[in-house]
């Protein structure tokens, strides 16, 4: 609780300081958020934002203390929290209709040398752990996104090659497009607990197929003529010298344990014309996470599942001030093979996830979006619905948003519309 109050105090102090309210990258380049973020809608990147990321966050002036902070205040109204709680035991009545400080992050982000840069996020989750009564109301701080890069760019009037390496802790977090697994779900939230159990952040998104903690991964990538992108990498348990990349998340350690090294790959075709940009890409990963339900020990090879994901994603952007339009679509197949310790085979699954989203922003101030999600499966898995959102950015680093999430199907819930939720949030960064 003390750390929570300190974080809020720091955040409010900074926001009220009257100084130019710019996060670390903006201070480094002297640019506003909208240079890198489409219509100022962080974290969705513009073409320039993608180049800034791929060149290792090294454009601009190195800052002595490249620190930013971010916080989210939110309030959620779930339509029938008691009904949902009876079916899912997610303690959904708690915090319903109440404003909460949900999550806050500290970033160490920016240029280190002309070739080296970093994006390091440590996050405080105000509802991370259960109290004695089983309600998730105990705050906790842990490693979040970490991306250390070395990058170079070879340019001539006829060729442009960006290449580099990323040491990161989350498959696809190194990707520059926001249809990637780590970035399409973009509004930070304390998810899956209390009244937030069925907000947009908890609805089906394409992912690595892994859950729990963060991992240690090294990827290499190349972007040729701003057209062809390829990335390959290997991930393993963040242990030894890489254990800081999962600090605070190892409770229990099995949550973040993978067997051996696990490959990740990504290819994309990118094209700009007039005021438009389009990308079509493929991605996939094969991994072996610990079977949390049936595993017997970390050293037993039969205690690990096999997870294979592969998908196609596409993004269209129209950027011409004052208009910003984005259309995104992702389709992914996830196949899980049960571990050798899962005699029942209940761990086997084959799931398809589709998500589409369209957004429009005017003058980098007024925005709206509409999303559709669909996860295949039997009654216990199938989830389908929509999220509509309107938001307003009074300052470039403050967003006030209202999300409406409705369900036609919701994994194992008899009356899915009881989980329909309205969420008001204030998201600020400095």
């Amino acid at each position, binding site marked *: 609780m003390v750390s929570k109050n300190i974080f809020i105090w720091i955040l409010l102090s900074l926001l009220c300081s009257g100084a130019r309210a710019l996060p670390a990258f903006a201070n480094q380049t002297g640019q506003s958020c909208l240079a890198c973020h489409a219509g100022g809608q962080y974290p969705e990147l513009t073409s320039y934002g993608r180049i800034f990321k791929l060149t290792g966050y090294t454009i*601009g*002036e190195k800052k002595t203390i490249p620190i930013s902070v971010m916080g989210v205040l939110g309030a959620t109204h779930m339509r029938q929290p008691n009904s949902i709680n009876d079916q899912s035991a997610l303690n959904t009545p708690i915090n319903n209709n109440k404003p909460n400080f949900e999550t806050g992050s500290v970033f160490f982000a920016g240029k280190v040398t*002309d*070739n080296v840069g970093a994006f390091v996020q440590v996050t405080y989750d105000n509802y991370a752990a259960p109290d004695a009564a089983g309600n998730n109301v105990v705050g906790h701080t842990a490693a979040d996104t970490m991306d250390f890069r070395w990058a170079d*760019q*070879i*340019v001539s009037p006829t060729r442009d090659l960006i290449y580099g390496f990323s040491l990161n802790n989350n498959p696809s977090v190194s990707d520059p497009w926001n249809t990637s697994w780590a970035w399409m779900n973009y509004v930070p939230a304390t998810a899956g607990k209390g009244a937030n159990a069925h907000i947009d952040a908890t609805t089906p998104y394409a992912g690595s197929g892994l859950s729990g903690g963060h991992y240690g991964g090294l990827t290499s990538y190349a972007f040729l003529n701003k057209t062809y992108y390829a990335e390959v990498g290997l991930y393993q348990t963040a242990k*030894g010298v890489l254990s800081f990349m999962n600090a605070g998340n190892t409770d229990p350690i099995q949550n973040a344990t993978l067997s051996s090294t696990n490959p990740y790959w990504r290819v994309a075709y990118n094209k700009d014309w007039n*005021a438009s940009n389009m990308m079509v890409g493929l991605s996939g990963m094969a991994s072996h996470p610990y079977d949390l339900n049936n595993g017997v020990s970390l050293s037993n090879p039969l205690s690990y599942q096999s997870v294979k994901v592969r998908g196609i994603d596409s993004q269209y952007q129209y*950027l011409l001030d004052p208009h910003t339009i984005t259309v995104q679509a992702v389709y992914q197949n996830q196949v899980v093979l049960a571990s050798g310790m899962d005699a029942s085979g209940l761990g086997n699954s084959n799931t398809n996830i589709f998500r589409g989203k369209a957004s429009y922003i005017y003058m980098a101030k007024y925005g709206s979006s509409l999303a559709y999600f669909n996860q295949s499966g039997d009654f216990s898995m199938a989830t389908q619905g929509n999220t509509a959102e309107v938001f307003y950015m009074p300052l470039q680093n403050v967003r006030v948003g209202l999300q409406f999430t409705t369900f036609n199907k919701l994994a194992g819930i008899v009356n899915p519309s009881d989980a329909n939720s309205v969420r008001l949030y204030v998201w600020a960064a400095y």
Partner: protein
Amino acid sequence: MNKFLIIAISIAASALSACTVADRSRALNNPNIEGKTIAQQVCSSCHGEDGNSRSAQYPKLAGQQTAYVVSQLNNFASHARTDRLALEVMAGMSSGLNEKQKQEIAEYFYQQTPSNTSLYSGDTSLGKQIYNLGIQERSVMACAACHGELAQGQQIFPRLAGQHKEYLLKQLHVFKNTHARPDTPMAMVTQNLSEKEMEQVANYLSTMK
């Protein structure tokens, strides 16, 4: 120690020990970096490695008049231009550059070959007429008087030939509807141009070689 860690540590060590390669730097406040390097490593992110930007959000700079580019970099840095992207994107990019770097950046882009990427295939006769002759009854000056018959520009008057139509139209709106670019006579020139006429001029210019 397994192979994965060895590879990771080797790369990290190589990266941290890497010397700054002056012709690959993306620094914007280092007077030792050549303007050509800044043009290739930073400006090219939006304006294209050969000055032919792919996105109409950003102007093509290939073949652009050197004096014009330098004057605009000065206007960005001094906040004399206050249209949104000038103030929120370009001001930060240009404020750390010295005069030599600005001149070198401008010369790099002037030396590049302009390419025409216009997809417009409609009638350009009205736009051509306004560009070359103006509209006398409404005191609209001929654009060619300053920008040249071939729209190649001269000195501080920019090259317009082959520029993105969307970019041209956006700037015409800035001239006509705002006070964000007070350093040009374009506010007066555009005052009596209709929306359709501005679009026709932009169409014509975008198709010029």
